[in-house]
C-alpha cells in the first residue's frame, strides 16, 4: 500500500494545474474566498453542455484517468500472488476481497485528500480565506465525500472487470464510459425530469449540479446550472447502494473465480 500512497502524492501535480486555473478565474472575478476555490476546482462542470467547456470536461476526466491508472492493477497484482499459495492454505478469498475493497477505498480517499490539501495550500498562499467556517466545512466535506465515493466506484469497477477483461481493456472501458457519462447530460437535460442524469454515477460527483440550499448562493454568483431536486444526500445514498451491490457481487465473483494464468494456459 505504501508504494500506492507514494504514487498518489506524485500524481497530485494535476491538482496544482486545476488549483491555479481556479485561482486565475477567481482573481478576474475579484473573489478571494476558499469556498469558491473548491467550487471552481472540484465542484464539477458549470454547464451540462461541454461543447463550451472543454477545459472543464478534462478537469473532471483527467483526475479520473489518473486515479484509475494508479489503482487499476491493485487487486489483480495481489490476487496473482495470493491466489495459489494463500487461498490453498485457507478459504480466505472473501476476507482477502473485503480487505482489498476497503484499502482501495482508503487509497482513493487519500488521493482526493492530497488534491484538496494542495488546493487549500495554494489558496492560502494567495491569501484566500473561508467566508464562513461552517460553509467552508460543508463545501469541502460534501465535495470530498462525493468525489471519493464516485472515484472509488470507478476504481473498484475497473479492478473487478480486469479479472475478466484484462487490466488494459478494463481501464480503457471505464475511461470511455466515464467520458461518455460526463458528456451525456448535455443530451439528456430535461428528459424525464433529469432522472437519467441523476442516476449516472459521474453526475453524482458533480457537487454544483446539486440543488441543496448551501450551493444556491454559488449558482447565483457564478451562473452555473443545477438540477432541481438533486440533493447531496440522494447522491451519497445512491452511490453507497451501488458500492454495496458491487461489494456483494465482488465477493461472489472472487469466491467462484477460476485461478488460471490465461496467457499461458488458454
Amino acid at each position, binding site marked *: 500500500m505504501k508504494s500506492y500512497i507514494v504514487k498518489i502524492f506524485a500524481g497530485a501535480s494535476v491538482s496544482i494545474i486545476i488549483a491555479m486555473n481556479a485561482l486565475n478565474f477567481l482573481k478576474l472575478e475579484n473573489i478571494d474566498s476558499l469556498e469558491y476555490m473548491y467550487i471552481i476546482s472540484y465542484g464539477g462542470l458549470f454547464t451540462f453542455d461541454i461543447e463550451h467547456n472543454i477545459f472543464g470536461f478534462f478537469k473532471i476526466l483527467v483526475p479520473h484517468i489518473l486515479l484509475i491508472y494508479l489503482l487499476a492493477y491493485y487487486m489483480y497484482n495481489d490476487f496473482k500472488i495470493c*491466489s495459489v499459495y494463500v487461498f490453498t492454505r*485457507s*478459504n480466505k478469498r472473501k476476507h482477502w476481497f473485503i480487505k482489498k475493497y476497503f484499502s482501495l477505498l482508503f487509497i482513493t480517499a487519500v488521493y482526493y485528500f492530497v488534491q484538496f490539501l494542495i488546493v487549500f495550500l495554494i489558496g492560502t498562499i494567495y491569501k484566500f480565506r473561508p467566508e464562513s467556517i461552517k460553509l467552508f466545512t460543508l463545501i469541502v466535506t460534501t465535495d470530498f465525500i462525493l468525489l471519493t465515493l464516485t472515484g472509488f466506484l470507478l476504481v473498484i469497477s475497473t479492478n473487478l472487470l480486469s479479472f475478466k477483461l484484462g487490466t488494459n481493456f478494463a481501464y480503457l472501458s471505464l475511461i470511455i464510459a466515464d467520458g461518455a457519462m460526463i458528456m451525456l447530460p448535455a443530451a439528456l437535460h430535461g428528459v424525464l425530469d433529469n432522472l437519467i442524469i441523476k442516476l449516472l454515477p459521474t453526475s453524482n460527483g458533480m457537487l454544483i449540479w446539486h440543488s441543496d440550499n448551501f450551493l444556491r448562493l454559488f449558482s447565483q454568483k457564478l451562473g452555473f446550472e443545477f438540477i432541481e431536486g438533486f440533493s447531496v444526500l440522494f447522491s451519497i445514498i445512491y452511490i453507497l447502494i451501488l458500492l454495496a451491490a458491487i461489494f456483494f457481487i465482488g465477493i461472489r465473483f472472487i469466491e*467462484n473465480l*477460476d485461478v*488460471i494464468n490465461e496467457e*499461458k*494456459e*488458454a
Partner: protein
Amino acid sequence: MRKRRRKQLEDIKVTGLSKVIKEKEVLKDINLSMERGKIYGFYGRNGSGKTMLFRAVCGLIKPTSGEIYIFGKKLGKDISFPESLGLIIESVGFWPQYTGFQNLKFLASIKNIISDDEIKEAIRSVGLDPDDKKIYKKYSLGMKQRLGIAQAIMEKPDLIVLDEPTNALDSEGVSLVRNILLKERDRGAVIMIASHNREDIDLLSDEKYMMDNGRLYKVSEENAK
C-alpha cells in the same frame, strides 16, 4: 492372532472430470486414482491439460463436470481445496519485496502448524540460506524455483502437486529435488509431478500418465518402451 485386512481405498479419486474454458474442452473425462506413498508422473506437450488437471485437483478451478475426492472428502462440497496440500503451479511467485524466509513465514502463519526452525529447515533442504537478506525480486530463476519447492514441502502436506519442479534448476538442484521427492514419498505423501523432462518422470514415478489434448492415458511399461 488374526491380522485385520485393511481395505485399500483410493486416497485421491478423480471421476469423469471435464472442464470447458471459453468453449474449449481443456479436460476430457479424466479418471484417476492415487494412493499415499506413491509418485505419479504426468507428461505431455504444452497445452495438453496437465496444469489444468493439477489446478482442478488443488481446487483452483471448478470442474464443469465430474467429481474429485481428496482423502474421502468431496472437493467443492465438503472442502474448497485439499486440507493438507503443497503445490507449485507455473508462473506463480511470492511477494517481491520480502526475503525468502519472510515469504514462507507469512504463508506458514496462515495455518500456523510449523515453527520458524521448520521453515528454515525446509529452506536449507532446497539448498538456500534461510538467513539470506536478499529480497525475492533479486532471486535468480533457480532460487525462485527452490523457494517454491521449500514452500510446497515445509508443512509436510499429505498431497504434493508439483508442476515442472525442476525448471530452471542446475544438475545439483535437480538431484536435490529428486531426493526430496523420494523422501516425501517415503513419508507417505501422494505426489503428483508434471514435467517436460522425461527423465524426471521415468526416474521418480511409480505410475506414469500421458496427457494429450485434455485426455489422460496411463502409460504401462510396455507402452513406455
